[in-house]
């Protein structure tokens, strides 16, 4: 079930939220189990057969967590992590490995075409973090219902944010769990509406510009300089609005149920360098990779060489996490290189006592250009398509041809304008939420009727657009 489907918006959410609060009046346990039930229904709508995989994965990891808490055995931890990674490896990377082996070593293994279970990368990572935290003795209260909800909680099950057990489990056990909190419900509705509007009005709209250009590149057709840049900038906006919309909707849904999920985006395209970009883009994944990969590898403790090597390993694996393709590995590698350069530049700047470029606008633009260039490898379906597009983007265009096409520039800029305005001139959803929260606390001074009405208007128009046939999947579902 998709967040932007009518059955989800008009049936699933109202039913789930209402039944949750009704049951909570009688029993918190029943309300919690009700959420587990709805989450499993949510997952099974996609493919009921894989529900068994999710349930067994939850059960096995819960048992392993218990054993690790008791015995703190490294061997057992290695087994638990390997078992989780093994399941991702089988479902997500088997064909990639077979294909790579076939082309490198001329083996003739048959591709298995295993169907990728929805959200496996997300729920497996959450469970890896859980078993590690059990091993480290950081988890005190263990309870199967809470654990099952932590993994399967439908707002974050399929595309994150990647939540840690400790940041959500205490909310399940809190005595206020299930109590109607009108402030949170209102905030949830507004944030959810912002997310839905970003998806329907911005991400899906701009996707129509990006998709044909990448299709052309993948089909081996020649792109012009202008086309390549327009296509890749469009995709930069598409993926940002698509994924951050999903995160906003997840946070909004959580709030409607009185639960707070971690922030996943904080205006990443306003970042003035790549290091900041990674602090504001898919924050919960970066946090996971930092805590469970970068730090165990040694982080920045063993000198610059090890630090850069570790950074590169993390980014390559982070790239591979997104999908079973060399394009994702290259994308991760490019960001690894960017980060190394960025750290290097910082060191030199610190020695000089002043930055190379102090103008924030130029820094934001440069960062955005670098990120956009890297997205080409993330989006293109073939390596040849990505290489061609990237080559066209970095090669100075033939001036005659370029100037002949200059007439298109205002039209292209016009198409990108709404996304650019929202990206760079408006506050992000979290800033809006914080501002609203402050205003809610001062009802004498502020009236929330206008933001509420705007959000309701946006929500209604989105539902109408979806009803009229505008319907698409979220990009991060495939990961």
């Amino acid at each position, binding site marked *: 079930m998709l967040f932007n489907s009518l059955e989800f918006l008009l049936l699933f959410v109202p039913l789930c939220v209402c039944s949750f609060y009704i049951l909570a009046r009688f029993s918190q346990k029943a309300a919690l189990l009700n959420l587990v039930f709805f989450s499993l229904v949510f997952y099974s709508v996609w493919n009921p057969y894989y529900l068994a995989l999710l349930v067994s994965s939850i059960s096995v990891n819960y048992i392993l967590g218990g054993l690790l808490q008791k015995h703190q055995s490294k061997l057992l931890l290695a087994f638990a992590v390997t078992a989780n990674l093994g399941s991702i490896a089988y479902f997500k990377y088997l064909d990639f490995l077979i294909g790579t082996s076939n082309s490198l070593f001329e083996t003739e293994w048959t591709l298995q075409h295993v169907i990728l279970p929805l959200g496996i990368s997300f729920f497996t990572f959450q469970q890896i973090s859980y078993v590690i935290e059990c091993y480290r003795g950081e988890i005190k209260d263990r309870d199967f219902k809470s654990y099952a909800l932590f993994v399967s909680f439908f707002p974050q099950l399929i595309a994150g944010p990647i939540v840690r057990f400790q940041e959500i489990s205490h909310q399940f056990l809190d005595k206020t769990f299930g109590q109607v909190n*009108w*402030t949170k*419900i*209102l905030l949830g*509705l*507004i944030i959810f509406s912002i997310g839905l509007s970003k998806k329907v009005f911005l991400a899906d709209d701009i996707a129509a510009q990006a998709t044909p250009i990448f299709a052309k590149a993948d089909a081996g057709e020649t792109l012009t300089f202008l086309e390549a840049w327009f296509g890749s900038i469009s995709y930069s906006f598409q993926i940002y609005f698509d994924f951050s919309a999903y995160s906003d909707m997840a946070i909004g849904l959580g709030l409607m149920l009185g639960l707070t999920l971690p922030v996943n985006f904080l205006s990443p395209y306003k970042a003035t360098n790549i290091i900041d970009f990674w602090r504001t883009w898919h924050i919960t994944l970066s946090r996971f990779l930092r805590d469970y990969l970068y730090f165990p590898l040694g982080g920045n403790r063993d000198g610059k060489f090890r630090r850069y090597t570790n950074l590169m390993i993390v980014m390559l694996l982070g790239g591979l996490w997104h999908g079973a393709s060399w394009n994702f590995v290259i994308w991760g590698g490019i960001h690894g290189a960017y980060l190394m350069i960025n750290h290097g530049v910082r060191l030199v700047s610190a020695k000089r006592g002043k930055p190379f470029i102090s103008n924030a606008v130029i820094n934001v633009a440069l960062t955005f250009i670098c990120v956009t260039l890297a997205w080409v490898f993330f989006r293109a379906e073939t390596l040849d398509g990505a290489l061609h597009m990237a080559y066209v983007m970095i090669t100075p265009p033939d001036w005659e041809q370029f100037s002949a096409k200059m007439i298109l520039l205002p039209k292209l800029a016009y198409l990108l304008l709404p996304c650019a305005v929202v990206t760079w001139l408006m506050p992000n959803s979290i800033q809006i939420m914080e501002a609203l929260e402050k205003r*809610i*606390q001062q*009802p*004498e001074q502020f009236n*929330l*009727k206008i933001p*509420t*009405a705007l*959000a*309701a*208007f946006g*929500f*209604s*128009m989105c*539902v*109408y*657009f979806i*009803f*009229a*046939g*505008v319907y698409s999947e979220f990009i991060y579902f495939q990961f």
Partner: protein
Amino acid sequence: MSKEIAESKKNTVLFIGIVAFMLITLIVISELFLRLVVAPSDNFYKQLNFYHSVENVDIAAFGDSRMSQGFYPEDGSRVVNLAYASENFEQIAQKIDYFLQTKHADKIILQVGHHMFADYRFDDDRRDYSVFFSPEQPWRKQLHLQDPELRGQLLNYWQLFFLAGFKIPNQSSFSDNGAVLLDMEMTIPPTEDQFYYRKERIAEHILKDGFESRETWDILRKTIQRIKAENVPLCLVSFPVTAFYSEPVYELEHTVSAFKKIEELAAEEKVPYLMYWDYYEDEPTYFRNLDHLNKTGAREFANDLIDDCGF
């Protein structure tokens, strides 16, 4: 209850109230818009009303857009064109079945072609013809919003409506005998756009492996048998296309075998099959685009086809 909570509760109710009001209003307005503005200018609804108005005819023709736009019988004749764009065999078979239950044609012409076995013809969101073409006509009691194709195009219709000055423009005309006619002529030599269109068109009609075992073949065979069982003479036809379209398509392996299979089926069922693909090879002015006849071509071809079927 603190003032903060009371305000939040009030605003939550306001949110839900606005959403409910807006959704109901949008649905009512959309239904009126589809019913009063869109449907009267929509070729499918014109065709639908025409179909239900027909009773006894000399010849009834069925098929997709190539037939719908390419078969323009003489005015006043008792020959009707009951084809509609993009129909698949399942829909055509259903339409013919309902036709034979309640109406009468002395002869039937049925369009066939490889493209009618392409994957996109079997999309889920297709019109259920039992709703539209059955003698009971349940569609008359339903909302127009329930028509998946009208609903799926709703935003485009709104856009058209506002851009065209509060009306839905229609480039084609609907003839008295059911043909959808377009006056435009294909540009010769083909423009860059036409090359692009050809590529897209060929790609969407490429038959996938295993097309021979599609249930559609059975449906086609059963439809032929159904018509024969009513003792109505039948003629199968593949419509003329331009050489600009046919040349690359002839190169495709599955296309050739699809035509062979149609020929074999016609021979087994002992019905004439007329393959007209290259019929107007030297007459580009008869086409509105690479694979559809225009008004002039459609009139010319209708006369030839009726003669050649030899009913």
